[in-house]
């Protein structure tokens, strides 16, 4: 097959989406070489910003004709390198498709384009007393498309569930360029749950161009408790026991001393900078029910020597506490020039044990590790702070990260709670799945994307060459050399 040359491809793309929306100069492309995953970069060859689903369809068909990989990108806040074009190619940036197409207050659903910023949807539905529940820390910037791509979670997903629980249907462009619809507003649609399959597929199965999501009614009342502890262990025990007592707060977040220092410097939310850890616990519901619920939580906390238990007195105070928690990761730049933010899950009963292990790993490697995470879900984010210019540092960081994830898996948990796999963890998939499991997933990928051009090098590990043992120790990331794209 004679592949289209680059000049022809670019000319055709310009016809389809308009010249200003096709970027090819190094000074325009270089900024798309990285997302919020700080330890890898690769530049796309072309960036296209489509304005409509039909344009996406044509662009993908053209890319396929040219044999060029297609990588979808939202706001680029992903933490697994999912939008990094490891094999080069054409990046489809969906930020221009940011219209809220419909808010149906009666049916409590919204139809949005993929580039809609998460918080803008909640703001728009607030007029009807509704909100969009998944609230990742990045909700002020990340897109619904990217949220679906990574099946994003957030503090309040403890009670409400992650993105996948709120997606009813989608319009998706397949690797052929055809547009297809999956899911429906019905609770139990007949046939395969393709919407379920596409959620969390990280742009490897199709490019989502329209999403129908569920909206929820805002709770009548909300209470937020800040519980301050001297040690991470006391805080972890509290989390385990609150859950064991059958209480389900809407959110239960932990911030340790390392992170608190950065957060307090950034936000001035009133976090005690010298405590061992704090829990931010929130409950929602009927006004009358909340004080009783709060008392039960406080009673559990009191068994673990809290320094202070303080309820937010005003909406402003609550907002500040949450701002501190949500922007905590960003604030870490105050402590070190780089960080590696991990994302593992453990059964909540194992939280104290695994947190102790994380601390031990930090000591062994002489690294500083901060923690801010969705404790109620057992979703850890140990974050290794480092200076990449120190020789040998990155190797130590990657090594420590692997040990942390192994500890999570050993405790019966998993390698990702919400950030997805991307390029970061595809090799670690082998820890959880057998080659047969992975082969089944590869067949799904092949069915959707027979040419393998949709976000290559992500999510699934490569097929192991025959006889090779799964070397789960060293290859952390893998990148293909970019030979012969248009040769």
């Amino acid at each position, binding site marked *: 097959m004679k592949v289209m040359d680059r000049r022809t491809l670019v000319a055709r793309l310009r016809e389809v989406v308009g010249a200003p929306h096709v970027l090819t100069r190094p000074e325009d492309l270089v900024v798309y070489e990285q997302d919020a995953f700080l330890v890898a970069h690769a530049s796309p060859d072309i960036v296209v910003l489509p304005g409509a689903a039909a344009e996406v369809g044509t662009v993908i068909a053209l890319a396929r004709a040219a044999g060029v990989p297609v990588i979808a990108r939202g706001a*680029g806040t992903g933490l697994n390198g999912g939008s990094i074009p490891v094999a080069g190619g054409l990046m489809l940036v969906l930020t221009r498709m940011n219209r809220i197409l419909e808010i149906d207050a009666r049916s409590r659903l919204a139809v949005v384009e993929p580039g809609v910023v998460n918080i803008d949807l909640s703001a728009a539905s607030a007029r009807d007393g509704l909100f969009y529940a998944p609230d990742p820390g990045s909700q002020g910037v990340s897109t619904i498309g990217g949220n679906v791509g990574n099946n994003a979670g957030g503090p309040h997903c403890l009670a409400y569930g992650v993105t996948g629980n709120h997606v009813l249907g989608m319009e998706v462009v397949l690797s052929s360029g055809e547009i297809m619809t999956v899911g429906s507003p019905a609770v139990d649609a007949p046939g395969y749950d393709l919407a379920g399959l596409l959620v969390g597929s990280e742009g490897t199965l199709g490019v989502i161009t329209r999403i129908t999501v569920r909206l929820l009614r805002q709770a009548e009342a909300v209470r937020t408790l800040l519980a301050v502890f001297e040690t991470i262990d006391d805080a972890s025990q509290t989390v385990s026991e609150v859950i064991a007592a059958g209480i389900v707060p809407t959110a239960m977040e932990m911030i340790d001393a390392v992170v608190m220092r950065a957060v307090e410097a950034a936000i001035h939310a009133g976090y005690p900078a010298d405590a061992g850890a704090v829990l931010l616990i929130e409950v929602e519901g009927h006004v009358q029910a909340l004080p009783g619920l709060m008392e039960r939580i406080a009673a559990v906390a009191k068994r673990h020597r809290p320094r202070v238990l303080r309820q937010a007195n005003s909406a402003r105070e609550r907002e500040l506490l949450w701002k501190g928690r949500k922007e905590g990761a960003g604030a870490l730049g105050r402590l070190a020039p780089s960080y590696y933010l991990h994302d593992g899950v453990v059964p909540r009963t194992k939280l104290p044990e695994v947190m102790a292990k994380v601390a031990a790993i930090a000591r062994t490697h002489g690294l500083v590790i901060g923690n801010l995470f969705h404790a109620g879900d057992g979703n850890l984010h140990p974050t290794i702070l480092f200076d990449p210019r120190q020789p040998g540092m990155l190797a130590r960081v990657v090594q420590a990260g692997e040990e942390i994830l192994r500890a999570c898996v050993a405790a019966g948990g998993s390698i990702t709670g919400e950030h997805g796999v991307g390029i970061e963890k595809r090799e670690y998939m082998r820890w959880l799945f057998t080659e047969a499991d992975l082969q089944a997933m590869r067949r799904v990928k092949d069915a959707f994307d027979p040419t393998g051009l949709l976000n290559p090098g992500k999510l699934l590990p490569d097929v192991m060459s025959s006889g090779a043992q799964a070397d789960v120790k060293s290859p952390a990331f893998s990148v293909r050399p970019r030979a012969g794209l248009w040769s």
Partner: protein
Amino acid sequence: METSVSSMHLPLQRTEPHGPVVPGLQIPELDQCVHCGLCLTQCPTYRVTRLETESPRGRIHLVRAAGEGRISTGERFAEHLNLCLMCRACETACPSGVKYGRIAEAAREVIGPPGSALSRAVARLAFTQLFPRLGRMRVLLRLLRFYQRSGLRAVARVLPRRLREMEALLPPVPARFFTPEAEVLPAIGTRRARVGLLNGCIMPLLFGDINAATVRVLRRNGCEVVIPKGQGCCGALNVHNGETTAAKAMAKRNIDAFLAAGVDAVIVNAAGCGATMKEYDHLLRGDPEYTEKAARFSALCRDASEFLADLGLTGPLGPVDMTVTYQDPCHLAHGQKVRAQPRQLLAAIPGLTLIEMEASDRCCGSAGIYNVTHPEMSRTLLDEKMTSIGRTGAEAVVAPNPGCMLQLRYGAQRAKAGTAVYHLMDLLDQAYQAAEDDAGRARA
């Protein structure tokens, strides 16, 4: 073939350096950015374009890549950096404390002033010959006043569109410039402080009445006001447009003038000037003779609202019956983190009602000479701003910064809205005046 990149190798596929590294761009402030993207949606130019290159994170990345010699610092790089408003909303948004302003200033020092070769030359001329020499500025403004009153303005209709639009941005030059009656003006009532006032470059010429109002309000609050003759323009436009050599000389001149005056504070009623003066210490770092003096000077600088709110207003305030909304000037809210104090002062004025607008701290598109260099983006932001102002239903908008005032007046004119535009000192002065009139009537 597939290369496995283990922990021993970085999975880097950075474009190779194709040019020399640029030391002027390899500044430590870059290290603080962790690429989280939390600043994106607070950036006015990203909101409009949705392009990473027109976002704070993107611009920081561009500077980093250019510093490493991976992209050129040529025209395209300059376009991205120059579309930035220097509003510093990203600094407010950034949890990591990235000093974006310094990064952008370093970049502009490398790329020089914006625009075509001709407009660059004109800008250079203005920055080096006009702003540092206020006498020339006066002459020019007198000519402009003559032009505006002579009927010549009608001729402007035949100008090309771009020039006509620029002409429309020109405010009417008032009949009188501000000339203080003495270098030191005594406090009214008990003296509470001795303060210096930055007269500024444009302020005394286009907004002389605001300087006069500021002096009256300060004096009524027990301040002895010194307006040192030796002072000049603050150099903000020079700093923002990469003309640091001239800026440094201008900074030294002001430092000398105000330190010699022996004041408790240096009061500034133009947010852009205040933000720059508070950072003279950074501008003059590495100048051994001025390091300490600049630090001392910067520590003395206060926005008029900041100073008065902290001092506490004294004396009777009469009613100013008006509903207003408040526009946070970027260089006050983001540059100096002064947000509460102007609102406190407004709340102290009887009869005045403040109705907050949506995103009051989003740039109005004025941004120094931005409305001239980037009219399209500027107008997009202005129209959005006028819509937000319109939604409040307020009769007037308060914006304590001359650039914002000019822009908002132009916006009100464009939107054919009757919204009046005031400086905060204007309204305080009116309130004091109202009290005095009441007292006068009571005596009569």
